């Protein structure tokens, strides 16, 4: 083995990291090369020096200090999964609450929609009926069966024909003279129709006992160009239909 090649391997040789063949070859070379032998001796001396005195002595309290820190860490790690579980539980509870709230909201919403739809449906149906009845009354020879401007004539006429006593009053002084009354058929039932006149306009006011009996403020619709007012008062449902303008129709409604 050449000296230059051997020199590169001397460190690994001292460390015992060479292959068996290399180790053997370097041993042979060192035996014959004084310079390489000196280097090996230097390396060995340095190694021994570092090995025997190089280590920094560990401070006495370090092991205890580290063990105390480990104990704290272990306690913290044990507490952590518990917190995790608690958080999970809390999250599950929160999710459950949200799901429950959502479900409840869905049910409530469905009920409201259903009732609104059915109510609207029934109301729309009645509205169509009253408007049709109004138009029908205009098409006939006379919109009335009992012609009288006297409420005391009209009101008894209804008795026995329908199952309640409609509110019949004359508003001639206010510009809404009572024309008369008739029986009509609205929303699958016989209803009373009281007819008023405003100039050349006719106003049909349909009335029958309110289903729930609840008071209800005036609702306004416009159907086929007719103004329709709808309200409940004192257990009676009123539908007023006319081609009269809204303001004057409201004026009549206000008096009833």
């Amino acid at each position, binding site marked *: 083995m050449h000296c230059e090649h051997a020199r*590169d391997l001397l*460190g*690994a040789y001292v*460390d015992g*990291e060479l292959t068996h063949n290399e180790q053997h070859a370097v041993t042979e070379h060192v035996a014959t090369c004084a310079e390489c032998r*000196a280097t090996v*001796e*230097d*390396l060995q*001396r*340095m*190694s021994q*020096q*570092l*090995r025997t*005195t*190089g*280590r*920094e002595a*560990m*401070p006495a309290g*370090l*092991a*205890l*200090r*580290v*063990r*105390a*820190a*480990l*104990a704290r*860490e*272990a306690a913290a*790690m044990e507490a952590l999964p518990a917190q995790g579980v608690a958080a999970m539980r809390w999250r599950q509870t929160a999710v459950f609450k949200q799901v429950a709230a959502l479900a409840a909201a869905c049910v409530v919403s469905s009920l409201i929609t259903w009732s609104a739809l059915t109510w609207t449906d029934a109301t729309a149906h009645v509205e169509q009926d009253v408007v049709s009845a109004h138009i029908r009354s205009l098409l006939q020879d006379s919109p009335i069966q009992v012609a009288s401007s006297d409420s005391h004539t009209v009101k008894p006429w209804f008795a026995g024909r329908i199952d309640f006593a409609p509110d019949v009053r004359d508003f001639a002084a206010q510009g809404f003279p009572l024309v008369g009354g008739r029986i009509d058929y609205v929303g699958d039932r016989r209803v009373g129709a009281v007819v008023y006149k405003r100039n050349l306009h006719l106003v049909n006011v349909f009335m029958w006992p309110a289903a729930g009996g609840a008071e209800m403020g005036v609702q306004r619709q416009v159907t086929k160009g007719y103004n329709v007012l709808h309200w409940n008062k004192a257990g009676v449902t009123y539908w007023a239909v006319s081609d009269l303008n809204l303001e004057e129709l409201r004026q009549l409604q206000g008096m009833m």
Partner: protein
Amino acid sequence: MAAPSSFERATLPHMEAAYNLAFWLMRNRADAEDVVQDAYIRAFRAHASLKGADIRPWLLAIVRNVAYRALARRGRNSNVVSFGEAFPGRGGEGAGELNVAADTPSAETLLIGAGDRTLVMAALAQLPAAFREIVVLREMEGLAYREIADVTGIPIGTVMSRLSRARADLKIILTRLIEKDESNAL
């Protein structure tokens, strides 16, 4: 204190090696203690992932990582060139290579110096950290090249070349220190 846990039984025997590596990287006892404690906590958190592997190189690798982070932090905080601290007396690996041939000390000179522990330690302290750690792991802890490669995460060939150069440089630094020591004595 409670009986040692299985983790403690496995790692406490290596605490001297851990502290020694930490000390030689930090070159400061207090910092080395902090590094060891931090490293053991990290090892404890991660030891479940260590299945059957040799615990000593693994533990020393953690110590080394913690120490390098601490050194980087120290360098930032002091706002001083940490380079000079980590690589004293040279511009880093491969730069400003010392002239080994011209400076090779005689065996006699080394013999004089070898008796003085403080001189050898001072010489080692002057080596760049990347070389110093390999000397520490090889010479003091007796790790094989393969184990050093595992701890440092550098290829085994690099371990070999760095160790070779570290030894040569150590010799040169030691010679200079001895010469300075002698001239001071005169």
